Every structure is written in structure tokens, then in C-alpha cells.
């Protein structure tokens, strides 16, 4: 597969404005990880090999509450389930790439890259190498900016006083990610149900309440959606 240079450049141009939004979140994630007690080396290793901001933020929060490793991994699975959707949808465009390229595309998947790529693909008739070029042109700078931002946060984080209460940036970032998703009644109901259930079952051990809340929330969303369409 020969990389298409104009497509790479187009991807990089598409990614440029998005970088402005990635950097603060990366810095905050780095700060939150170090503030919760994750050492700098482990924080950077997680950033490079996991490369998923929301689950890293959740891991920091769960670790500071003494959650066992297995449940943190389970929480990661639930939080990152959306990547399965991205995988399914990117596959519609990139299924015919050699397996090696598809494995690289899988690694670079992130909310921003996915959004940019799919909106670019939607109104154009592109060849397979142009599609790959655009994805990589957007995905690689976003990956680099994210890692640099997390590193910045990890370095600053080590010297931030506890009285600044920057650990609250974790839940705040999740609020910022959740609210724009609430575009229809079923989605609002799913979030509300999950919020109510997680509080009502808070006495359960091992933060099982998060898993139960997620399952109830998804079920409520599906039921409401069905009622409206039937």
C-alpha cells in the first residue's frame, strides 16, 4: 500500500484545529494521573500503550479509591466499548486494507480522529489509499499532540499543591464529554438512569455499582428508543 501524500496533508490540515482541544485534556489527564499517585513512568507508559483518555482518567480515580486491578480493567472495557462502534464503522471503509494497516488504524483510533475521518469520508468518493492517507494524516499528529500534552501534565502534576484540588478535573472532564452526547430523550434517560442506579447501589462492594448502572442505563435507552419507533 503506497501512502497518498495529498491525502496525508489533507488529514493533517483537518487535525490542526482539533489539536487545540486535545492539549488541555491531555495535560489534565497527566495531572490527574500523577495526583492520584501513579508514578510518572507508569503514567507515560499507560498513555502510550492504552492511549484512551477517558479510561486513563477513570483508572486514576479508581486507583485512588483503592479499586482492585481486575475491576479497573473491567471499567476500562465498559468505558472504551465505544471503540467497538468506531471499529465497526471504520471497517465499512477500510476492510480491504492489508491486515498490518488495519492493526495500525485500530491503535490510532480516538474520538477526534474517528469524527474527523468519518465526516471527511461521508461526502467524498475516495480511493482506499486516500482514505488511509487521510486517517493517518489526522491520526499521527493527534497521537503526537496527545502524548506531548500528557507528558506536560505529568511533569507539571508532580509539583501541583493538593489545595488546588485539580483532582476534581477528572469528574469535570467526564461531565464535559457526557453533556454533548445527550441529544435525544433516550440518551438523556440512559444517562439519568445510570446516575440514579450508581447512587442507589453505592453501598455494594468493589464499585460494582458502576457496572450495574451502565447495564441499566443501556437497557433504559434501548427500551425508550423502541417505544418511540414502534
Amino acid at each position, binding site marked *: 500500500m503506497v501512502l497518498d501524500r495529498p491525502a496525508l496533508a489533507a488529514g493533517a490540515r483537518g487535525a490542526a484545529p482539533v489539536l487545540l482541544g486535545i492539549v488541555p485534556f491531555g495535560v489534565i489527564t497527566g495531572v490527574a494521573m500523577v495526583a492520584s499517585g501513579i508514578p510518572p513512568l507508569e503514567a507515560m507508559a499507560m498513555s502510550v500503550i492504552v492511549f484512551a483518555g477517558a479510561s486513563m482518567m477513570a483508572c486514576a480515580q479508581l486507583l485512588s479509591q483503592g479499586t482492585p*486491578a481486575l475491576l479497573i480493567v473491567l471499567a476500562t472495557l465498559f468505558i472504551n466499548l465505544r471503540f467497538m462502534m468506531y471499529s465497526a464503522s471504520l471497517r465499512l471503509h477500510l476492510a480491504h486494507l492489508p491486515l498490518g494497516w488495519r492493526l495500525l488504524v485500530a491503535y490510532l483510533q480516538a474520538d477526534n480522529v474517528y469524527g474527523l475521518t468519518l465526516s471527511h469520508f461521508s461526502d467524498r468518493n475516495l480511493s482506499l489509499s486516500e482514505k488511509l492517507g487521510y486517517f493517518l494524516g489526522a491520526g499521527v499528529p493527534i497521537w503526537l499532540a496527545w502524548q506531548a500534552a500528557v507528558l506536560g501534565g505529568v511533569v507539571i502534576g508532580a509539583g501541583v499543591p493538593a489545595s488546588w484540588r485539580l483532582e476534581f478535573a477528572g469528574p469535570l472532564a467526564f461531565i464535559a464529554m457526557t453533556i454533548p452526547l445527550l441529544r435525544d430523550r433516550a440518551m438523556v434517560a440512559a444517562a439519568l438512569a445510570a446516575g440514579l442506579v450508581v*447512587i442507589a447501589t453505592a453501598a455494594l462492594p468493589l464499585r460494582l455499582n458502576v457496572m450495574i*448502572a451502565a447495564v441499566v442505563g443501556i437497557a433504559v435507552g434501548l427500551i425508550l428508543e423502541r417505544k418511540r419507533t414502534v
Partner: protein
Amino acid sequence: MSLWLTIAGMAAVTYALRASFLVLPPSVETPPLLRRGLRYVPAAVLTAIWAPELLLQDRVLFLALENERLLAGAVAIAAAWRWRLTSVTIAAGLLALHFFDWLI
């Protein structure tokens, strides 16, 4: 050591999810119910993670005007609704947290 295991586990499940459909042969179809169920995952899971940080204290519901995290969270939700920018939401929430902390 346990932290490295945690990181390895997180990396494995995350990569497995990202690769899940991309590694399938082009002929395979996605089941419709799975596709629809996955749509609600981010909103439900993320809410289940931030709601306790606002509403609980020592695992007990803390619904009071003295709860500065709840008040700051309400400000952050309003900011997220109005501007839809991560940086604005976080800045508003942190400023509100310190303001209510000082006020109470």
C-alpha cells in the same frame, strides 16, 4: 507490580475493542441490536463515573447546600450545556469549586 498488570490489562482490552471489527473479513455483518446498544454506552458509563463524585460523601448521598462538589458540578453541567467545550467546562467547575468552598 500490580499497577503494571493493571496497565497491561487496560491496554489489552482497549486494543481488543479497537481491533474487534477491523480484523474481521469484509463479508461479516454487524448485528443491529449490538450496534444500537453500543450507542448508549458512553453516556451511561461516563455518568456512572462522575455522578458519585458529585453526590456521595463516604458512600452516602450528600444532598445539601454544604456540598461544594455538587454545586460546582451543577455549574460545570450548565457550562458544558452552553459552550460544549471541555476546557471551558473544567475551568468553570474548578473555579466554582473554589468559590463555593470559600463561601461555605
